[in-house]
């Protein structure tokens, strides 16, 4: 009996040791994104991408996370960040893609020394010398170069008409488009900014028609992009339309009939539903299964961003400072592209051009621009 007890105890201890979770590191990564308000479509994609990564961490990492809606006011984002930090040690934060919210969160990131990983395209967030910000979506300085180069170099067009949104997003894209077109020796034949509340595009289409462009370049939000394409097709406009990234979102394409999409192309950071690699196809399958919707570039970009943070933790980066070091010094092979910091926290440097065939709503990647930067 005594012998068997002596044997039994070590066996139990051994089993307990073997069966213990293989978790070596812990991470707390709050997700603070806009789920309501005018950026809810993009914010929801951002959240979903982050969740997919957080729910499937590396085996040696235990993740704690919570989701908070930052809506659209900067103070909401600040409150959400302060609340998340007050609840315990935070490793890194998945931060809002709304530029004005990011600008409000940046001073707090310095104060609390916590890395913010975001999809925000607002150029200024990485131009303030803040070492805690990491942007995983190509900004306008990259995507608009791809946009303009595709129109001029691949389509051979010389008379573009530009329609942009009068929001901060639209004006930034417009500025970068014009800068690149100018470098390429092209001047637009017509330009107009429109408010997001504009419903009837026919007056605009008539004005554009009078300027006789050979291509239409749009930089609009999701619904206005679909609205413009639909009404342009009804009005008999048959010249190519090359749009901003809103058109790559499956929910935008869903508003249009396949024949209306014929001749429509768009720039984007990536296009997960277009496939390309086994990793992207698995991501798309998992995303559809988990969220019952189609993934877009924001979801894939945020997935990659969050996965890079988790990889950092898995490799032993246990403090926010370690994670910041890892993000700023390492190359990460993500699903959408390779990510590496340019020293300012800009991690994404590639863009793709997608085009619709007119037969369905699934775009094909027709051009991949690598390592673009604003010095082009």
């Amino acid at each position, binding site marked *: 009996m005594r012998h068997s007890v002596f044997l039994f105890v070590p066996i139990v201890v051994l089993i307990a040791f073997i069966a213990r979770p293989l978790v070596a590191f812990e991470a707390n990564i709050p997700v603070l994104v806009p789920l309501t308000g005018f950026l809810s479509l993009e914010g929801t994609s951002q959240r979903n991408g982050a969740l997919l990564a957080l729910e499937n961490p590396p085996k040696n990492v235990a993740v704690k996370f919570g989701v908070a809606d930052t809506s659209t006011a900067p103070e909401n984002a600040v409150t959400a960040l302060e609340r998340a930090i007050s609840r315990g040690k935070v490793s890194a934060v998945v931060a809002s893609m709304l530029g004005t919210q990011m600008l409000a969160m940046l001073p707090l990131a310095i104060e609390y020394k916590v890395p913010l990983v975001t999809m925000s395209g607002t150029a200024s967030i990485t131009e303030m010398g803040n070492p805690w910000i990491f942007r995983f979506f190509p900004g306008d300085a990259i995507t608009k170069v791809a946009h303009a180069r595709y129109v001029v170099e691949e389509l051979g067009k010389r008379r573009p008409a530009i329609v942009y949104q009068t929001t901060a997003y639209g004006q930034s894209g417009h500025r970068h488009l014009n800068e690149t077109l100018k470098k390429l020796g092209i001047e637009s034949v017509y330009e107009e900014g429109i408010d997001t509340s504009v419903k009837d595009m026919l007056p605009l289409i008539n*004005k554009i028609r009078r300027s006789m462009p050979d291509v239409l370049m749009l930089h609009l939000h*999701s619904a206005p992009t679909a609205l413009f394409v639909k009404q342009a097709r009804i009005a008999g406009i048959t010249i190519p339309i090359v749009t901003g990234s809103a058109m790559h979102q499956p929910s935008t394409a869903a508003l249009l009939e396949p024949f209306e999409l014929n001749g429509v192309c768009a720039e984007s950071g990536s296009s997960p539903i277009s496939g390309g690699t086994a990793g992207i196809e698995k991501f798309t399958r998992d995303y559809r299964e988990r969220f019952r919707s189609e993934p877009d570039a924001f979801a894939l970009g945020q997935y990659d961003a969050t996965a890079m943070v988790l990889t950092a933790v898995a490799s032993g980066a246990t403090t926010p400072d370690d994670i910041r070091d890892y993000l700023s010094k390492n190359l990460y092979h993500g699903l959408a592209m390779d990510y590496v910091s340019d020293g300012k926290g800009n991690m994404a440097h590639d863009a793709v051009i997608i085009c619709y065939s007119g037969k369905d709503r699934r775009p094909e990647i027709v051009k991949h621009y690598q390592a673009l930067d604003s010095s082009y």
Partner: protein
Amino acid sequence: MQFIQLALNGLALGAAYALIALGFVLVLNATRAVNFAQGDLVVTGGFIGAALASQLPLPGYALLPVVMLAMAGVGFCVSALAYWPIRSRPPVAVFTTTIAVGIILQNGLNGVFGPEPRSAPPLFTGSNLDIYGLAVSRQSLAIIAAAAFLIAGQLFLTNYAQLGRAMRATAQDRDMAAAIGIPVARMIAFTFAVSAALGGAAGLLLANQFFVTPTDGTNLIIKAYIAVVIGGWGRIGGALAGAMLIALFETIISAWMDYTVATGLLYVAVLGILLVRPSGLFGEVEGRRA
């Protein structure tokens, strides 16, 4: 030719705006308070239409009464939540509660249907009509006809039906209406229901040609508010004229100049109208301003 095309588009857009403004004025007259949830009620109608269309393979004209009925129910709920508990408070309290209801609707739609833009089915399917070389959209014509029918029906109800008379009496003097046996509470709830039904109809009509997103309500309520200010606070005819004027600027004026300039000119025109006629084009109904 181009002008006729634009005018037709403007008329269709104005007709939909007129439905929104009409619903806005009805509640304004009944309660003396601005229903800031009206834009979100329009959006709710659009989403209900889009959701029903995905479940029931019905054309838009068959969905229209269903959407209006559902929205009438929503209108009853809005009156019960945002008006009835604070009916004896100053109208400014109702402003606040309707803003809250609007936010609840907006976020509710976002939660239930998702943030993606949606499209509702057209009232009548088929390609554009070719009338003397003019490509006339069936949906534009259908919007104009449907809105005209609903506005005429509403005016008939208000002016000639017993129920409408009771609504008007309630709007004119609530205490006197109660004194002569009119069920004031029911009349106000009914007004909210009619207003929401008209807004829902506008939502369904707009959602096909112009899509609908959960956050569209804010822009729509601004347009309804401006329409009412232009036409005269509390004037049904004035609100309809104001809605048409806004649509005119959005389609005709912006065809010859920048959208931003056209929008600026619209506000200059509003200021001009208020300068010459401080009570709006058709004058203000006495006692309607809070």
